[in-house]
């Protein structure tokens, strides 16, 4: 089963890369962008086929390594 982990900076955490993207979009004429925030997408291919167990595994991976919960949030998507 496949899992996609979206890691994003928590609201309120400064995101200089997001700011740079915002400015670049503005330079390109996309004037309607009020904010850009950059995150990470991590794709995992898991041996586990049970969605509940897979989610529990990925949760633990997020807490232990994939996200730094001091500054980041994470969201998990599973795909059979």
């Amino acid at each position, binding site marked *: 089963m496949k899992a996609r982990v979206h890691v994003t900076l928590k609201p*309120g*955490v*400064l995101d*200089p*890369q997001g700011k*740079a993207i915002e400015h670049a979009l503005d330079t390109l004429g996309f004037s309607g962008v009020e904010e850009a925030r950059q995150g990470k997408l991590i794709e995992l291919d898991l041996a586990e086929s049970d969605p509940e167990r897979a989610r529990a595994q990925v949760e633990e991976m997020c807490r*232990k*390594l*994939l996200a*730094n919960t*001091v*500054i980041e949030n994470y969201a998990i998507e599973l795909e059979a």
Partner: protein
Amino acid sequence: MKSAVVVFPGTNRDRDMVRALEGASGQSPALVWHKHSEIPKVDLIVLPGGFAHGDYLRAGAMAARSPVMREVVARAESGVPVLGVCNGFQALTEAGLLPGALLRNADLRFVCRTVTLRVENTQTLFTGRFAAGETFDTPVAHMDGNYFIDDEGHRRIAGNDQIAFRYADGAAAGPANPNGALDDIAGVFNETKTVLGLMPHPEDATDPLHGGTDGRKLFDGIVEALS
């Protein structure tokens, strides 16, 4: 004072740290490879600067999960002093031994220059040689030194005197704060002040050839406290 310097793949300031420790203590530190799960019995453990594991995922993230770090955490929890410089500071926050996190520099540029630091707490085993409010000059060299902590954490570390150093105006050219760090924080202690992490490189201000020797006070103070 006996010390150990932990080396990860990508660490590049280990020799600078070894020289600074030798200069202050007269004893050569033990070098401990990241895959080793044992550290000799020492008075101080040091995580030096560099780009451990290429800073993949987040700076210090992989280093913080190395086999050796389980032992570093266990020793720190038993009260053994730990010092983390630059990448070592990042790894200590990632390992949960120090509060907060280090974000990408606010201007997205690698910063390499001299900064002035103000010593904010002199009542610790690391900073005993400094006078209250004393400033000193050291180099910085990093991409991710922008210290961040949430409001509640900020109040907690400020109230508990855990802010070790702040960037301050001084002889150095350019703005005092080189990376956008919250509240100009350059270094922090853990709650018991036995773990210190800082972004600047005091080990690279210990020889006249470095352009300054202000960093010696830190190492001399540590040796004095731990000998």
